[in-house]
């Protein structure tokens, strides 16, 4: 299997604080990796660097052979819109755009907004009946599914999720996990940061971080 993500000796410091300390990690194509660990262990920092929202202090991050360290702001923006799909714990949606338009927003930055395609993507995550609803009129689980549709719309190489079920009840968590499972079955590469053991255990592999270091790996 092709190596999609390769993190080598990655470090990140904020002043005197070492958020990541010499982390080595790799993810193969189609693999589902969970990154777990206590609060402050550096798992979100790791994900932010991998998705190009933050830059490493030292080390290397290669996604599908492309080195992220040293990329300009514009190059990182291009990387985010073309290679990764992002899912956040807080959903983050534009409040005045409806579900379809929130998905189309991602298309607009990527290339060209296509309403039909956006509607199909929402249908795929089970929201075909909520296409024209504003975020305020959607439940937490529905909002997260809109975010998953948005993350998938540009057919990314890698799906990155930061605590995707952190704000969801059990029922909605189940729905999201089913979607992840389906995506994994279809061959999508997933990296999911979570502190929820039930979410983490659904992955092919779990990496535990502690104090910015890889504490253990489980298969």
């Amino acid at each position, binding site marked *: 299997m092709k190596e999609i993500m390769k993190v080598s000796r990655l470090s990140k410091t904020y002043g005197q604080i070492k958020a990541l300390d010499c982390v080595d990690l790799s993810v193969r194509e189609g693999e589902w990796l969970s990154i777990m660990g206590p609060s402050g262990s550096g798992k979100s920092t790791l994900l*932010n660097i991998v*998705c190009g*929202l*933050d830059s490493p202090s030292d080390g290397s991050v290669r996604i599908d052979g492309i080195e992220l360290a040293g990329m300009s*702001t*514009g190059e990182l*923006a*291009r*990387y*985010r*819109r*073309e290679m990764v799909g*992002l899912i*956040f714990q*807080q959903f*983050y*949606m*534009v*409040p*005045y*755009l409806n579900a379809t*338009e929130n998905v*189309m*927003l*991602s*298309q*607009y*930055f*990527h290339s060209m*907004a296509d309403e039909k395609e956006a509607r199909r993507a929402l249908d795929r995550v089970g929201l075909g009946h909520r296409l024209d609803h504003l975020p305020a009129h959607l439940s937490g689980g529905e909002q997260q599914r809109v975010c998953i549709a*948005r993350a998938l719309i540009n057919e990314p190489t890698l799906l990155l999720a930061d605590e995707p079920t952190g704000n969801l009840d059990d029922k909605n968590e189940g729905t999201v996990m089913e979607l992840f499972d389906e995506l994994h079955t279809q061959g999508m590469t997933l990296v999911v940061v979570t502190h929820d053991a039930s979410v983490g255990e659904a992955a092919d592999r779990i990496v535990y971080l502690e104090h910015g270091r890889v504490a253990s790996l489980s298969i």
Partner: protein
Amino acid sequence: MLLHLVKDSLVRRRRRIALAVLSLLVGTALISSLLTVSLDIEGKIGKEMRSFGANILLIPRSETVPVEIAGMPAGEIGDRSFLREEDLGKLKTIFWKNNITGFVPYLFGRARIEGTQIVLVGTWFDHEVSTEKGPFRTGIRQTSPWWRVEGEWPSGRGQLLIGHELADRLALEPGDQINLNTGQSGREFRVAGIVSTGGGEESQVFMDLSEAQELLGLAGRVEKVQISALTKPPDDLARRARLLEDPKEGLPPKEYEKWYCSPYIEAITYQIEEAFPDGLAKPVRQVADAEGAFLGKLKLLFALIAGVAAVTSAMGVTATMSATVKERRGEIGLMKALGAENFHITGQFLLEAAFTGLIGGVAGYGLGIVLAALIGRQVFDSPVSFSLPVLPFAILTSLAIALLGSALPVRRASRLEPIQALKE
């Protein structure tokens, strides 16, 4: 998608947008009203200035320098040069004929009233001149509206106007009969009125030109003509032409044509001299220069007010846009996280600013028309002519203010770090 984003954003933030539009509206209204008045002001100020006196003097061309003593040309009548009264209609045939708003001929002579020597002035009080375009009324009453007459203006033969100082000296009052003798002939006149001008006219006697010509034996002659003309303040071309003896020879043909076809005072005097080959037309420099200087200062004042209005308006837009950017940090962060580049963010905010500028510009132009009409009525006592090019100017000005006012907040928005914005 971009237009959709902008539209939704504007609709959702209509209160904040209304504030920005209000700021632009006030600034643009002030600027466009001042511009409207400024474009129309040359004519208006010209008309106002014409009420302070003629700005061109037409005298006979002679080899000697004309000298006046006590307000009348020096020398014996036989030595003096004259213009023909019948030629004066030619003033309304020159290229800038419509800018000639009035002209008054003068004929001077010496006479005695009860043994006192006085200066006799023949002129038009309110006279009808035949021109190509029909009758044209002109006279002292039109060109010197500041003359104050106690009694009444002469309205027929046998009536005259006596200067206030002379009337005091001779103890004359309106309605008195006097005998006026020029040496050649004498006649009884009724004092129709006593005139106060604040100038040398107060020691002179004024009568209708035709009667003065009869008394002095100078039928059909006039000695000088005061002309009121609406002129354009001098610019670089006018100042260069002023230094030339003959602009036709000294200026390149195209510049000469432009100069000739502009109502500069020198161009008008040039055209008067073309119509009066025996005449010498001279600008009354104090009046012309005062007009130019006044107009220049007024326009500078307008420009300063417009500048302050533009800056204030831009500051209003900056404040509103800054608040909008602050309010939308999360949204900007999300867009950047999804791969938006700086130009996506900048484009969206600038488009919103441009839309605001467009509304502010159109509304500002509308309010500007009302303001300009108000200024015209209150300050110049006449309506202001509206110039259509002010509309695109108002829109462009409002757009420029909106875009410049938004520049700093938009720059801040585009430089926002997505990770920080999302954490807030």
